[in-house]
């Protein structure tokens, strides 16, 4: 048995890194044994979701969820698959995998990824520019759209330049980071944003810069368990988008 056959379980659960997944899909194309096992796992687990005991959804969930959904632009064809960040790109791929493996279609062509990523970053930058322009107003003024408000904004120092703002939008706080003059990355490397409290780093979004060295990321702080005040923000260069703690050098940072 090929060594890669042992990755089937992690592939089925979408847990391989992008590179591993690419390699595994290559292997899957030529390994009948894995194809059979993959089909078998898919078939045998088909009924399992129905084993979930019914639970009553919380009150008001439908309104909250649909409001969140319709707040998202249903983008046109050109932007359709644009991932908002590196992590999103991974998710998109997993969903493609969820639609089941077929020999003729897999692996999906990834050519769209680069221009789409650039488009996503451009949109993201445009959004940040808007935020930054709004900052010039007196701090208590609510923006003309009546919802966003900058709670805090800092300039990060180090190699390159970056601004980080915490923006309040309705009841949720979003971290917006906009960076320039960043060094290019290689392979699966990403720039990872960290929020630090009492020496402990929390992941707060990752991004890759475009060819001009401009990068940006927005991150909903509601995703973080720690909702208190943060001590520090830092950006480090990481080998890929999965680091649980900073492994690479911190290139930019600031006190909060």
């Amino acid at each position, binding site marked *: 048995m090929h060594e890669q056959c042992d990755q089937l379980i992690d592939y089925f659960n979408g847990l391989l890194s992008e590179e591993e997944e690419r390699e595994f899909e290559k292997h899957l194309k030529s390994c009948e044994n894995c194809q059979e096992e993959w089909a078998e796992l898919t078939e045998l*687990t088909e009924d*399992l979701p129905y*084993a979930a005991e*019914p639970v009553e*959804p919380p009150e008001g969930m439908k309104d909250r969820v649909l409001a969140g959904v319709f707040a998202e632009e249903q983008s046109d064809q050109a932007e359709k*698959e644009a991932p908002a960040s590196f992590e999103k790109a991974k998710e998109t791929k997993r969903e493609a995998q969820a639609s089941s493996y077929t020999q003729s279609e897999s692996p999906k062509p990834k050519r769209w990824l680069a221009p789409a990523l650039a488009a996503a970053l451009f949109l993201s930058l445009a959004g940040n520019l808007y935020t930054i322009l709004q900052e010039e107003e007196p701090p208590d003024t609510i923006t003309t759209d009546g919802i966003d408000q900058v709670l805090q904004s800092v300039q990060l120092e180090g190699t390159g330049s970056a601004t980080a703002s915490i923006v309040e939008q309705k009841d949720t706080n979003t971290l917006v980071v906009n960076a320039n003059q960043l060094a290019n990355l290689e392979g699966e490397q990403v720039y990872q944003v960290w929020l630090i409290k009492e020496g402990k780093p*929390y992941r707060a979004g990752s991004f890759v810069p475009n060819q001009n060295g401009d990068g940006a990321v927005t991150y909903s702080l509601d995703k973080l*368990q720690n909702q208190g005040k943060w001590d520090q923000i830092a950006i480090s260069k990481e080998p890929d988008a999965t680091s649980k703690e900073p492994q690479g050098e911190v290139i930019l940072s600031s006190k909060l």
Partner: protein
Amino acid sequence: MSDRDLDLYNQVLEGDKGALEELYDKYEKLLYSFAYKSCGQKEMAEEVMQEVFIKVWTQKATYDSSKGKFSSWILSVTRFTSIDIVRKKENQNYSLEEERDTLHQEEPSAEDLAEWKEQGEIVREAVKQLSEEQNKIIQLFYFKGLTQREIASSCNLSLGTVKGRIRLALKHLRKELSNIKEKGGVGDA
């Protein structure tokens, strides 16, 4: 029934909010219950719902009717989303044990999906027939989405035997399912 799903899905692609709402209503409880079983926490399960329907609406995930039923597809999007969200929380040292909510559990009501109503009871009954070890490995693999390595250490197995044990457990489950179906359902024994 599934044709209706496909019609609604095609309308969603055209930007029809009403169609998305109809799909939401139809699948809300099943997907929420499934996500809750994976995450064990109601805020996270709601976050999963939000993500799943954003993916459907923005077409970050796209359904291809030639590859199977809409319900299977949206359930698998939900499973991947749950696994992702749980792992992201774990990155922040979130402990599942501490915050596991206990929600009132009930049987599906008359308005719930017929499929769920028919199958749920049978599948749960079949799961009960499994040994504790087999039940555990299915929970960890399918609902919790752990890695092979995590499953190995959690079940005291060598890495190489995990896949075989999972397949064995699933095949046993399949056998119990067909036994129950042959007997004409739960409660006829």
